[in-house]
């Protein structure tokens, strides 16, 4: 059976993992209330998508 000849050194291990990273979520800012919103999603704060369209529920001050 094929088996590793050498234990992977920490250096090798680190090099392998050097490409592992997390990516931040894509965030836009709502055109209406300027609060952060995931891109291509209706704003959960004010219910607007782009400049128009009241979408689901409108919680307000």
């Amino acid at each position, binding site marked *: 059976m094929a088996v590793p000849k050498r234990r992977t050194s920490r250096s090798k291990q680190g090099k392998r993992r050097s490409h592992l990273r997390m990516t931040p979520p894509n965030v836009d*800012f*709502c*055109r*209406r*209330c*300027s609060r952060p*919103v*995931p891109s*291509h*999603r*209706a*704003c*959960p704060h004010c219910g*607007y*998508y782009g*400049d*128009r*369209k009241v*979408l*689901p529920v409108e919680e307000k001050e």
Partner: protein
Amino acid sequence: MRHRKRGRKLGRNPAHRKAMLRNMANSLFLHGRIVTTVAKAKELRPFAERLITLARRGTVHARRLVIARLGKQPIPPDHPDHGRYRNIVHKLFAEIAPRYIDRPGGYTRIIKIAKRRLGDAGELAMIALVEESIAESRERNANRRGRRRAAEAEAEVEAPEPQGEQTEEGAETAAVQAESREKPAATESPSEAAEEGEKEKKG
């Protein structure tokens, strides 16, 4: 290989899938808007829109075809349309389809929702019957094109300036424009000064 095989299976067998589409379409016609996963909304759209197109014909044959696909679900007693329409198919033919006589398809709109589904964190979307008239849609599309061109021209002129404060101002004027879209000509004004004046008039 699944090359060119259309449609999602949605983890269901054919009967289950068909029943679910029928349920979702009935809910959509009953309530006007429903929230589901993005995948289900995208599957529902062609199904529901085909039914509306059929209903626009208004013939007995079309009605029977729709009933074959939708069934005749009653309108629940706690719904405002209860008593107004005999069943959901009736509502579709009497109220929904006539609204779209002039619209060449595209009767529904899918908008993704920021909230994720509880449990599997599935992506949610709202699918809704389009409420504006075809004329309103055309006007809005014309305005959008105009606005984009205006924005590009503006960007070219003011390219070297720092962007921080300007984007905030842009957001505010965009909101104002959304509120005052009865006056499209005025809100399309190319200079920012004019837009500021517009805002003060509103405020």
